[in-house]
């Protein structure tokens, strides 16, 4: 499989101090990291692409480590996660699907074995497109307070022959979460769902 060619990396960290209402004791932190790489399959139909997932693993690990560092470096402080991909217009949605395995693997590796499926979003789009990366609790997908999403984008990417790959981590629930449902302190922790 082809090498991973990294053109650009962008890191975003948001600190939410309040949302109307009183400031929380600890501000919510949400971080995202986006890597802009060449799409090795751009411009043609390539039947065999799955091997590229293995090639993406080191990139994914780097991204997960850098993102964790940008959020303070404590894996125990991370409660939510998500991932996403934007494929430039010379590529296919299926190319974005190559990110599922290495992106999820990288975050589990760095965060120490999260149980829940990593929620994801992907699309084919032009440079500057925005992607709402879905976020859920990393050990129990049904935790309602942690349902969230983070909008990301890079002005000059993805170009037609590129892919933008993203990881997202958060340190907690939505600020002032009060819409009920399964709470983080009620997680059973067996199946990744509840």
């Amino acid at each position, binding site marked *: 499989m082809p090498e991973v*060619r*990294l*053109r*650009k*990396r*962008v*890191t*975003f*960290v*948001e*600190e*939410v*101090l*309040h*949302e109307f209402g009183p400031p929380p004791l600890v501000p919510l932190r949400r971080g995202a990291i986006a890597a802009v790489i060449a799409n090795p399959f751009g411009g043609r139909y390539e039947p065999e692409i799955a091997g590229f997932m293995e090639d993406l693993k080191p990139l994914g690990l780097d991204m997960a480590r850098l993102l964790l560092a*940008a959020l303070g470096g404590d894996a125990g402080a991370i409660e939510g996660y998500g991932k996403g991909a934007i494929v430039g217009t010379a590529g296919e949605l299926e190319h974005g699907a190559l990110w599922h395995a290495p992106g999820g693997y990288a975050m589990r590796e760095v965060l120490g074995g999260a149980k829940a499926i990593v929620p994801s979003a992907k699309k084919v789009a032009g440079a500057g497109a*925005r992607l709402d990366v879905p976020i859920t609790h990393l050990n129990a997908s049904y935790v309602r307070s942690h349902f969230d999403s983070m*909008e990301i984008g*890079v*002005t000059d990417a993805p170009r037609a022959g590129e892919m933008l790959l993203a990881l997202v981590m958060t340190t907690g629930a939505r600020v002032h979460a009060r819409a009920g449902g399964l709470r983080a302190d009620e997680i059973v922790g067996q199946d990744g769902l509840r």
Partner: protein
Amino acid sequence: MSLRIRKIVTIVEEVFEEAGREVLPPARRAACLAVIGNPYAGAYQDDLAVLIEAGSELGAMLAGRALSALGGAVESYGKAAIVGEEGELEHAAALLHPTFGAPMRKVIGGGKALIPSAKKRAGVGAAIDVPLGHKDAAFVRSHFDAMEVRIADAPRADEIVVVAALTDSGRPLPRVGGLAVGDILGVDGLR
């Protein structure tokens, strides 16, 4: 600070490759944005002292965070503000111009050149292109640049987004001539 900060966003960009060529060392840019309540939203006020005073603290805080995120020596800088729809362009001016620059320069270890700036009034999610220029000589052509930033949920009508941006380099692969970094005189902030 007398103003309420709702949110702080830090963005770091690293360029490793441009036009198929490696950029070595990678070109890095960092911006830090704060979303603050606009105390003057909705009604004309002659005296904008609260924002003028807040500009000083914001200049230090935003430049400090951008500097930490950049992780290297600063070569160029810029600043900007987006005023929510119930505010005035003048509110951005009050934040950015009287007191913002001095603490920003102090944090990054000096800067002789004017800090280039942009401002506008806009709705939630608006992007702004923060102009960038070399910190010691505004005429350095390789460092003329801009960094687009935005926050999806800001500014609300009664808020202002304030930005400080720093870089450790100029554009990747600069080759349009003009004053070069090596030729800076460093006296007047221009050349």
